[in-house]
C-alpha cells in the first residue's frame, strides 16, 4: 500500500517526472551495460491471476460533473459533490485540484498546474474536503467544496476542476502487468461580474487526419474567442460538393471555448474526398450571442493522405 501510494504521489515531487524518488536514474548506456552483464529478457512472469483471486472491479460515481457559479469578488460559496463507489471492496479515493484547458484536438487536459491558464484559473480559490477518503462497496459520500474569490478578482470567467482518483488497495494482486485506478473529474466555472462573450469563426479548412491505420479527412473550424468569457458552440458544419449537393452534415462538439484563445473543432468526414476536387464547407454556429454565425469557404482537397507505416 505504501509503495503504491508513493507511485501515485511522486509525480509532483520527483526530480524526474514519473520516476519514484530514490530510484536509480540510469542513462540508456547504463542500461545497455547492465543488459550485457545479465541474461536479459522478460521472462514469463505472470501466473498471478491464476494464483490469486480475480482482481476486483473498480468504480466511482460523481454528481454533478460540472458546476457554474456566478460570484462577486470577495465572496465565497460552499457546495457539495456526491461521490459514490461501485467497487467490489473498500477503495481509497484521493482528491486533486486541477487546472484544465481544451487542446487543439478538442481533448480536455487536466493537471495540477498549467501556467498558461493562471489568469483564468479558479484552482487557487477551490478547496475540497475531504481530500482523501475511504469508500466501502456501494457507498456514497458528500465531498464539500468551497470557492473563495479574492477581492482583487477581475471580471471574467475562470475555470478549474477537482479530480477524484482511486488508490490501489493493498490486497490487489501484483504481477508483470497493469493495476487499475479510475479518476473522475468535476469541472468548475466561476463567472465574476458580467463579462461579455464575443467570438467569431476564424478559419475553416480541410485537412488529412493523422490516423496511421485509416487515412481519412476531416474538416476543421477554428473559432476565436477574444473575450474574457467562455462559451459553448452549438451548430453544424455542412460539406457540399461542387454542384452544391449536401454530402455530409456534422454537429459541433459542445466543448467549451475558454477565454482569450482560438479553439479548433474537428469534424471527421465519412464521405470519400477526392484529391483535387472542390468542396464547399459551410459552418453555422450559435455561440450564445445574439446571432447565429455562418461562414462558407470553397476548398480544393489536397493530395490524399497516405498510411503511416506501423512502427
Amino acid at each position: 500500500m505504501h509503495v503504491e501510494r508513493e507511485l501515485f504521489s511522486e509525480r509532483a515531487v520527483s526530480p524526474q517526472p514519473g520516476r519514484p524518488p530514490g530510484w536509480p536514474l540510469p542513462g540508456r548506456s547504463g542500461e545497455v551495460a547492465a543488459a550485457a552483464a545479465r541474461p536479459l529478457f522478460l521472462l514469463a512472469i505472470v501466473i498471478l491471476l491464476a494464483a490469486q483471486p480475480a482482481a476486483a472491479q473498480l468504480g466511482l460515481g460523481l454528481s454533478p460533473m460540472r458546476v457554474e457559479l456566478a460570484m462577486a469578488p470577495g465572496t465565497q460559496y460552499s457546495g457539495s459533490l456526491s461521490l459514490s463507489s461501485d467497487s467490489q471492496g473498500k477503495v481509497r479515493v484521493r482528491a486533486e485540484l486541477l487546472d484544465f484547458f481544451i487542446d487543439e484536438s478538442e481533448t480536455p487536459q487536466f493537471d495540477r498546474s498549467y501556467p498558461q491558464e493562471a489568469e483564468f484559473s479558479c484552482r487557487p480559490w477551490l478547496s475540497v474536503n475531504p481530500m482523501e477518503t475511504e469508500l466501502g462497496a456501494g457507498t456514497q459520500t458528500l465531498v464539500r467544496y468551497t470557492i473563495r474569490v479574492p477581492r482583487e478578482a477581475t471580471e471574467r470567467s475562470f475555470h478549474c476542476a477537482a479530480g477524484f482518483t482511486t488508490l490501489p488497495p493493498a490486497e490487489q494482486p501484483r504481477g508483470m502487468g497493469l493495476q487499475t485506478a479510475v479518476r473522475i473529474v468535476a469541472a468548475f466555472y466561476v463567472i465574476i461580474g458580467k463579462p461579455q462573450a464575443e467570438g467569431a469563426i476564424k478559419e475553416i479548412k480541410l485537412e488529412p487526419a493523422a490516423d496511421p491505420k485509416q487515412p481519412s479527412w476531416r474538416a476543421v473550424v477554428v473559432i476565436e474567442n477574444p473575450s474574457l468569457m467562455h462559451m459553448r458552440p452549438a451548430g453544424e458544419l455542412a460539406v457540399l460538393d461542387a454542384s452544391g449537393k449536401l454530402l455530409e452534415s456534422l454537429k459541433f462538439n459542445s466543448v467549451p471555448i475558454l477565454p482569450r484563445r482560438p479553439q479548433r473543432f474537428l469534424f471527421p468526414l465519412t464521405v470519400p474526398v477526392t484529391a483535387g476536387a472542390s468542396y464547399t464547407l459551410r459552418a453555422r454556429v450559435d455561440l450564445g450571442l445574439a446571432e447565429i454565425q455562418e461562414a462558407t469557404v470553397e476548398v480544393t482537397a489536397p493530395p490524399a493522405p497516405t498510411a503511416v507505416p506501423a512502427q
Partner: protein
Amino acid sequence: MRRCGCLLAVVMLAGASLSEGQKAPRQPTPAIVRPLATSIHSFAVSPGTVSFAASDPDLGTFAGSPATSVTWNLTGGNASTTWTLRVASSGSWFGGGSAGCGTVPAGAVTATCASATTSGGASATASCSAAGGLSTTYRTIASGNEGTSNPSFTVTLSFALLDSWSYVANLSPPCTLNVSYSLNAP
C-alpha cells in the same frame, strides 16, 4: 434520477441558506448557482489487473490478459456535450519495489480501444480514438456525446507489451504499472 434529485435539493437548500446569509457581510451570496447537472454513475473498470505473459522478446508483442472493460452511465446529460475517456500511467516506468523494473518503460505498453458502444438514452454517441503508448500524460482512447435519457456506455480496451531484450524484469517483487482511467465532460 432519484440521486440526481437529491443533489439538486442539496444545492437548492445551500443556495437558500446563502440567500438568508446575504444580509451578513461575511457570507455574500453568488448571484447564480447553476449546477450543470450531468452526473456519472458506476464509472467502473474491470478487471483491476491486466497481466503480460512475456516469454521471449523475439516474439515481439504480447497481449495483456484479460481485455479491459470500462462502463458507466450518465444522467442529466446534454445531447451534444462531449465526454472523453482517457488513460495514463502513474509513472514513466514499471515499478516493483526497491529493485525495481526501471528498464521497462510505460511507453512499451500500447492501449487500444477495441470498441465503444452506447445503449439506451438518446443522442448519445461513443467512438474509439487512435491507439497509443502509455505515458504520464493522459491520452484520449474514446469520446462521444453525453446524450440524454440516461445512456449507458461501454468501452473495451486491450493492452499490448512490445517486449525487448533490454528490459529487465523482476520475478519478486514483480513489475507493475499503475494505470488510471479518467472520464470527464467539461
